[in-house]
C-alpha cells in the first residue's frame, strides 16, 4: 500500500516525461553487444526439434553467451558467464546440438546449461579442482534417438591433473569421472558414437609433445585402452595441434610438420598416423592451416583443409573411408588471390562447404567439386575476415547458404545470397572513453560571424552582404528540394526535423581493444567509421579532446593520437612518455595536463584563473592553483583510516537559471552557488565507513562533511554534483534496531542561509574570496538540507541531464547494473525539503513539495531504457542541444545506448501526436466553409437592412 501511495504521489507531482511506444528506435538506439564470438563456439542451431528456423549461438571472448536471430541480427538473450571471483584462464566454450533445447557453456571453473529458446538456466556446476578445458555433448547412438537432454563430457584441467567427467544432461551432476594423474597436459575430449576419447599431451623426453589418446567407456568411464602417437617432432606447444574432431562419425586429430610440407592426420581410436603431402603450388609461405569438418554425428566423414598464405588461399577436400580408415583426397578448391574463409554446414548427412572471398561466396558439396551456388558479394567490407559459420538450406536442387563472418575489426556480419543482411559491431564492447564531436559546418559559420564581429561597421556589412550573396548559390538546390521537403515533413514521423537543433550529434568512442568508432546518434547509432589506432588489448584512453574537424586521444602512457573526425584517418601521433597518468585534464583544446598516479601534475601550466583538484593513489586530495603549480596549494587528508576513492565536481556546462528558490509564500531561499566545489568520497574498508566531503576547490576548506557507518565499500558508491545540490548512493547495513538494510540515495541541497530572503554574510558583500577574508575563514558555510531515501537497487554511476539554459528541470541519471537499465529520477522527487511525517501545507504544495516517504520506488516512467536490457554501462554522457527542453544522452562501457531526455517534457517541440496533415485539412475546410458561407451571410444582412427600413 505504501508503495502504491508513493508511486501515486510521485506520478502526481512530477511531470514525468516517459517515452512513447512509437518513439522507441526513433529517439533512442541500442547496440546490445556480446564481444567477439569465439571461433569454435559459434553455431547455427535449431533451438528445439519443433522449430524450423535456427538461431545463431555464440560465446564471446568476454564469456558472454548469447543467441542471435539470424534474420535481423537482434540479440534474443544473453548470459554473462564470467565471474569476478572465479579463477580465470581457459577459453570460453559453448556446445549445442540441433533440436536439443540446451546449450552448454563453460568459462573458468564454471559450466552451465541453458535453454536454447529463452536462455534460462537448466543446471550449473563448479569444479573447484581446475578450469574447464573442453566440453563435448555426448552423442551416443542410443541417446540420439531420444530427444531428451544430452549428457556432456567436461575436461577439467587442474594443476598437473586432468579429469574427464560425464555430466548428467538434466541435473549437471557428475555420472562418472576419469582422473589422469600422469601430469600430461589435459588437452581435448572427443567422442564417437561408441567411445569417449581423452586426448592429452605427454611431454616428450627432449622436446615437444606426444599425443596420448585414452579410450574410455561412455557408460562407466572405465579406461578401455590407451595409445601414444609419435608427434614430438612436430608438436612443440598445444597450439601446434590444428584440429581435434568433435562428434563426427570419424573424429580425427591433425597437425602439420614444422616445415609445413606434410599434414599428419590420425583417426582417433586408431594407432596409425597418415601423412598427407601439402602441395603448395602458390609458392608462398603458408600462414595458416585450418581444418573444417562437420560436427553432426551422422554426417559424411569428409573434411576440408584450408591453407592461407599472405596473398591468397586454397583448400583441399578429403574423404575418410570408415572401414579401412584410409584418407583420400577428393578434390581441391583452387588458389584464389585475396582473403577467403571457409565454413561447414550440413543438410542431413550431406556436408557443404561455403567459401567466402572478398568478391563472391561459393557453395560446394563435400562429395563432388561441382559448384552448387555462387553469389557475388556487393559492397563487401575490405577488412580481413577471421572466420565464418554457415547454414545451408536446400531449395529444390540448389543450396542456399547464409554465413556469419567475423571481421578483424570486430564487426560480425551475415551474408545471405551475396547480400549483407546485418552487421553487428561487437568491437564496440568495452568502450573506455567517449565524447561528442562538433560538426565542422557550424564551426565555419561561427568563424565567419566572428570575423564580422571584429571588423569595422562598413567592413562587417560588406562581409555580410558578400556572405549572403555567396549563400545564394545554394538557392536553386534549396528550391529544388522544397517540394520534397514539404511532402516529407507532412508525412514524416517527426513533425519537425530536429537534426538542425543539435540532436544529430556524433560521438567518438575509444575501446579497450585500441579501436576508435564514430557513431551518429541521428541514424540510430550507425557506425560512421571505425579505425584501429593502437594494436593493444589494454588501451587506457584517459581523455578525448575535440576541436572542429579533429579529435585527439590521450592515453595513460602519455602518448596521443589525432584523428580526422569525419573520416577517422589518423593525422598525427605522439610517442608514449615514461609516465603513468591517472587522468588527463584539458582546459581548452590546446592545453592538456596529465595527472600522475600520486596526484601530482606531469607538467606545469600557466592559467591564473584556473584551478585543479586531483586525487592521489594513497588516498589524498590535492589542490593546484593556476598561478603557481609547482607544489599543491592545499592538501586534504581524510580522517585516519579513510582513503579517497572518488572526487567529482559540477559539470563544465552547468547553467543556473535562477539564483534562488521561490517559496510558496513568495520569499526566496538563495542557492549556494560556487563553481569551485568538489565532492570527495572517502572510505574505510576495515570498519565499513564512508565519508563524503564537500570541499572548496580554491582553499581546500571542508564546507560540509557526512559520514555513514556500515557501508559496504566493495559495492559501487556513486556520486554526482550539479547546481547547488549533490547526491550519492551506497549500500548501508543495519546499524541499530531502527535502521534499515539496503541501498540508499542521499540528496543534499546547499543554500546561503536557512532563512528565506536572507543571503547571510554575503548579502552586503560586493566581492568575496575563499582565501582572504575579514575574519579568518571568510567564505560562509552553506546551509545544507539533506534527505535520504531507500532505493531498491544499487546505482553504479550517476549523471545529470544538461540543457542549454538550465531552465528545464534536471534529472538524476542513474545506471542500475542489476536490472540492466538507466533511469532518470526527476529532481522534484528528490527535493530534500519534502515535509517529513506530515502532509505539506498549501504553501509547500504550491512549491511542488509532497510528503516524504523513506522508500523511493522507481517508477516505470523514469526508465529511459524502458524495456531494453542495457548492460555493462560504465559512463553516461549528457549534452545540451539547441532545444532547451532536450538533452541528448549517450551511455557506454558495455553496451552502447543513446537517447534524448526531456525532463520537463518536450515543451518546445511538437510531438508525434501533432498531425500536420490534419491541421492543413482543417484550415482548408474552414477556408472553404467561410468562402461558402460569407456570400450567404452578406446577402442575408443586406436583406435584413432593407427589411428593417
Amino acid at each position, binding site marked *: 500500500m505504501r508503495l502504491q501511495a508513493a508511486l501515486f504521489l510521485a506520478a502526481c507531482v512530477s511531470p514525468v516525461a516517459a517515452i512513447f511506444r512509437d518513439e522507441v528506435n526513433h529517439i533512442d538506439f541500442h547496440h546490445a553487444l556480446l564481444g567477439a564470438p569465439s571461433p569454435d563456439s559459434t553455431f547455427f542451431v535449431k533451438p528445439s526439434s519443433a522449430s524450423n528456423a535456427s538461431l545463431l549461438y555464440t560465446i564471446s571472448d568476454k564469456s558472454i553467451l548469447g543467441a542471435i536471430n539470424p534474420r535481423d541480427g537482434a540479440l534474443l538473450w544473453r548470459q554473462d558467464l564470467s565471474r569476478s571471483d572465479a579463477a580465470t584462464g581457459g577459453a570460453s566454450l559453448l556446445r549445442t546440438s540441433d533440436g536439443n533445447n540446451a546449450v552448454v557453456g563453460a568459462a573458468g571453473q564454471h559450466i552451465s546449461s541453458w*535453454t536454447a529458446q529463452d536462455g534460462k538456466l537448466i543446471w550449473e556446476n563448479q569444479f573447484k579442482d581446475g578450469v574447464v578445458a573442453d566440453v563435448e555433448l555426448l552423442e551416443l547412438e542410443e541417446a540420439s534417438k531420444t530427444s531428451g537432454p544430452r549428457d556432456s563430457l567436461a575436461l577439467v584441467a587442474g594443476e598437473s591433473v586432468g579429469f574427464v567427467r560425464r555430466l548428467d544432461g538434466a541435473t549437471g551432476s557428475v555420472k562418472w569421472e576419469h*582422473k589422469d594423474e600422469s601430469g600430461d597436459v589435459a588437452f581435448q575430449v572427443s567422442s564417437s558414437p561408441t567411445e569417449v576419447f581423452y586426448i592429452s599431451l605427454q611431454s616428450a623426453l627432449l622436446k615437444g609433445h606426444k599425443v596420448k589418446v585414452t579410450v574410455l567407456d561412455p557408460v562407466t568411464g572405465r579406461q578401455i585402452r590407451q595409445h601414444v602417437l609419435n608427434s614430438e617432432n612436430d608438436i612443440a606447444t598445444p597450439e601446434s595441434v590444428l584440429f581435434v574432431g568433435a562428434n563426427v562419425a570419424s573424429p580425427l586429430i591433425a597437425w602439420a610438420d614444422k616445415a609445413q610440407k606434410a599434414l599428419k592426420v590420425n583417426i582417433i581410436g586408431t594407432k596409425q598416423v597418415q601423412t598427407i603431402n601439402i602441395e603448395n603450388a602458390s609458392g608462398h609461405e603458408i600462414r595458416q592451416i585450418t581444418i573444417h569438418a562437420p560436427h553432426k554425428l551422422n554426417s559424411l566423414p569428409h573434411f576440408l583443409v584450408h591453407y592461407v598464405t599472405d596473398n591468397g588461399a586454397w583448400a583441399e577436400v578429403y574423404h575418410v573411408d570408415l572401414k579401412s580408415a584410409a584418407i583420400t583426397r577428393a578434390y581441391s578448391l583452387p588458389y584464389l588471390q585475396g582473403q577467403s574463409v571457409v565454413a561447414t554446414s550440413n543438410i542431413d548427412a550431406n556436408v557443404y562447404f561455403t567459401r567466402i572471398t572478398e568478391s563472391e561466396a561459393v557453395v560446394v558439396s563435400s562429395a563432388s567439386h561441382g559448384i552448387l551456388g555462387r553469389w557475388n558479394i556487393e559492397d563487401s567490407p575490405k577488412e580481413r575476415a577471421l572466420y565464418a559459420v554457415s547454414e545451408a538450406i536446400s531449395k529444390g536442387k540448389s543450396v542456399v547458404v547464409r554465413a556469419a563472418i567475423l571481421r578483424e575489426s570486430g564487426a560480425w556480419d551475415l551474408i545471405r545470397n551475396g547480400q549483407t543482411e546485418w552487421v553487428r559491431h561487437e568491437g564496440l564492447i568495452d568502450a573506455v572513453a567517449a565524447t561528442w564531436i562538433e560538426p565542422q559546418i557550424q564551426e565555419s559559420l561561427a568563424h565567419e560571424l566572428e570575423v564580422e564581429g571584429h571588423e569595422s561597421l562598413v567592413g562587417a556589412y560588406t562581409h555580410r552582404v558578400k556572405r549572403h550573396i555567396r549563400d545564394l548559390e545554394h538557392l536553386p538546390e534549396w528550391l529544388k528540394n522544397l517540394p520534397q521537403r514539404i511532402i516529407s515533413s507532412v508525412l514524416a514521423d517527426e513533425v519537425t526535423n530536429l537534426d538542425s537543433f543539435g540532436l544529430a550529434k556524433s560521438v567518438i568512442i575509444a575501446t579497450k581493444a585500441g579501436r576508435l568508432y564514430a557513431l551518429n546518434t541521428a541514424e540510430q547509432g550507425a557506425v560512421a567509421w571505425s579505425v584501429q589506432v593502437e594494436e593493444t588489448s589494454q588501451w587506457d584512453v584517459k581523455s578525448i579532446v575535440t576541436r572542429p574537424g579533429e579529435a585527439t586521444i590521450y592515453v595513460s602512457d602519455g602518448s596521443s593520437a589525432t584523428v580526422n573526425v569525419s573520416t577517422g584517418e589518423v593525422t598525427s601521433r605522439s610517442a608514449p612518455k615514461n609516465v603513468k597518468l591517472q587522468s588527463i585534464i584539458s582546459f581548452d583544446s590546446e592545453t592538456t595536463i596529465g595527472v600522475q598516479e600520486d596526484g601530482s601534475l606531469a607538467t606545469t601550466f600557466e592559467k591564473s584563473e584556473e584551478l585543479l583538484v586531483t586525487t592521489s593513489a594513497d588516498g589524498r586530495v590535492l589542490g593546484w592553483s593556476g598561478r603557481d603549480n609547482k607544489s599543491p596549494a592545499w592538501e586534504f587528508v581524510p580522517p585516519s583510516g579513510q582513503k579517497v576513492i572518488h572526487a567529482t565536481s559540477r559539470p563544465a556546462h552547468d547553467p543556473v537559471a535562477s539564483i534562488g528558490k521561490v517559496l510558496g509564500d513568495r520569499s526566496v531561499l538563495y542557492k549556494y552557488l560556487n563553481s569551485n566545489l568538489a565532492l570527495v568520497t572517502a572510505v574505510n574498508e576495515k570498519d565499513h565507513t564512508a565519508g563524503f566531503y564537500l570541499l572548496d576547490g580554491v582553499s581546500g576548506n571542508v564546507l560540509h562533511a557526512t559520514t555513514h557507518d556500515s557501508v559496504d565499500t566493495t559495492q559501487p558508491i556513486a556520486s554526482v554534483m550539479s547546481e547547488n545540490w549533490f547526491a550519492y548512493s551506497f549500500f548501508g547495513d543495519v546499524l541499530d534496531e531502527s535502521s534499515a538494510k539496503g541501498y540508499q540515495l542521499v540528496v543534499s541541497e546547499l543554500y546561503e542561509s536557512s532563512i528565506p530572503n536572507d543571503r547571510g554574510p554575503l548579502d552586503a558583500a560586493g566581492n568575496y574570496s575563499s582565501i582572504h577574508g575579514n575574519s579568518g575563514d571568510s567564505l560562509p558555510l552553506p546551509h545544507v538540507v539533506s534527505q535520504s531515501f531507500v532505493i531498491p537497487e544499487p546505482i553504479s554511476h550517476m549523471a545529470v541531464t544538461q540543457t542549454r539554459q538550465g531552465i528545464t528541470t534536471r534529472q538524476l541519471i542513474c545506471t542500475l547494473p542489476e536490472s540492466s537499465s538507466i533511469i532518470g529520477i526527476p529532481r522534484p522527487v528528490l527535493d530534500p525539503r519534502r515535509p517529513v511525517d506530515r502532509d505539506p501545507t498549501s504553501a509547500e504544495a504550491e512549491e511542488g513539495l509532497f510528503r516524504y516517504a523513506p522508500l523511493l520506488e522507481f517508477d516505470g516512467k523514469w526508465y529511459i531504457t524502458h524495456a531494453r536490457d542495457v548492460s555493462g554501462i560504465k559512463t553516461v554522457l549528457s549534452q545540451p542541444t539547441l532545444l532547451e527542453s532536450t538533452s541528448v544522452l549517450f551511455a557506454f562501457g558495455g553496451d552502447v545506448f543513446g537517447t534524448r531526455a526531456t525532463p520537463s517534457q518536450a515543451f518546445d517541440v511538437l510531438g508525434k501526436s501533432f498531425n500536420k496533415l490534419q491541421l492543413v485539412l482543417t484550415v482548408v475546410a474552414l477556408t472553404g466553409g467561410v468562402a461558402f458561407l460569407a456570400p450567404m451571410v452578406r446577402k442575408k444582412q443586406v436583406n435584413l437592412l432593407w427589411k428593417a427600413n
Partner: protein
Amino acid sequence: MLALVVLLLSHLAAASLTITIPTSNLLPNPHALPASTHATLTTLPASNGDDHLLTAPLSHISTFAFRDIPVQQGSYLLDIRSSEYIFAPYRVDIAADGSVLGVWETFRGNPWDNRGAEKYVVDVAGKKQSDVVVEAKLLGRRGFFEERASFSPMSLLKNPMLLLAVAALGLTFVDPEMRAEFEEQSRSSALTGATGNAMAGGNFDLAGWMAGTSPGPMANAEPAAGGATGRDSGAATRRRG
C-alpha cells in the same frame, strides 16, 4: 573418486535456497520473464572478505536456486532483480553452518527487525532442512511507456461546445414555434446590434484599429469629428454585425 565424494559432501553441508515464482494475475506465465531476471543475496562483507554477494539466475522452471550458500553467518537481503516486475524483498537469516534459519518478508525503508510474513523458519526440534523452498511475492509491474491519446470521433463529439450547438440546432428544428420566436428575436437583436453599435461604438474593434482599418475609440466618441470618418466607421461596424 575421493575428490568426488568430498565434492558431494561439501554439497550436503551447505544448504540451498530455492525461490519459486508463482503464477499471479500480474504475471500469468512466469516463463515469460526475460533471461536477465535474477535473484541476489546481499549483506555487509565479513572481515575476512568472504563472498557476500550471491547471484542466482532464472532457471527454466522459473526458480532461483542458491546452491552452496557460503558459511557466513548473518542476515541477508534477498532481492529479485527485474526491470519490469517488482518483487517483495525478503530477509534471509543464515546460520554459521550455512543452513537457512528463516525467511521473512521485509519492507524497504523500515527497520530491519520489522519482519513481515514468515515464509520459512527452521524447525528447532526437528532436523535441519537442507533445501529451503520459498515462494516469491510479486508486488507490481512497471509501465514503461506513456500512452498516446488516440484520435477518436467520439471524443470530438463529447466536446461541450459541440454538444451545446447540436442541442440548440436540434431544438430549433424540432419546435417550429420556438424557431419562429428565435428568428424574431434574432432579427430584432441583429437590428439593435447593428444600429446600437453604430450609435454607441460600445464594442471597440481593437484588431481593426491596430490594423488601421477601423478608427480608434475617440473617433466614435466624437461623432462630430469629420462626417466621412463617421460614415465609414458606421459601415465598418455594420459589416461586422
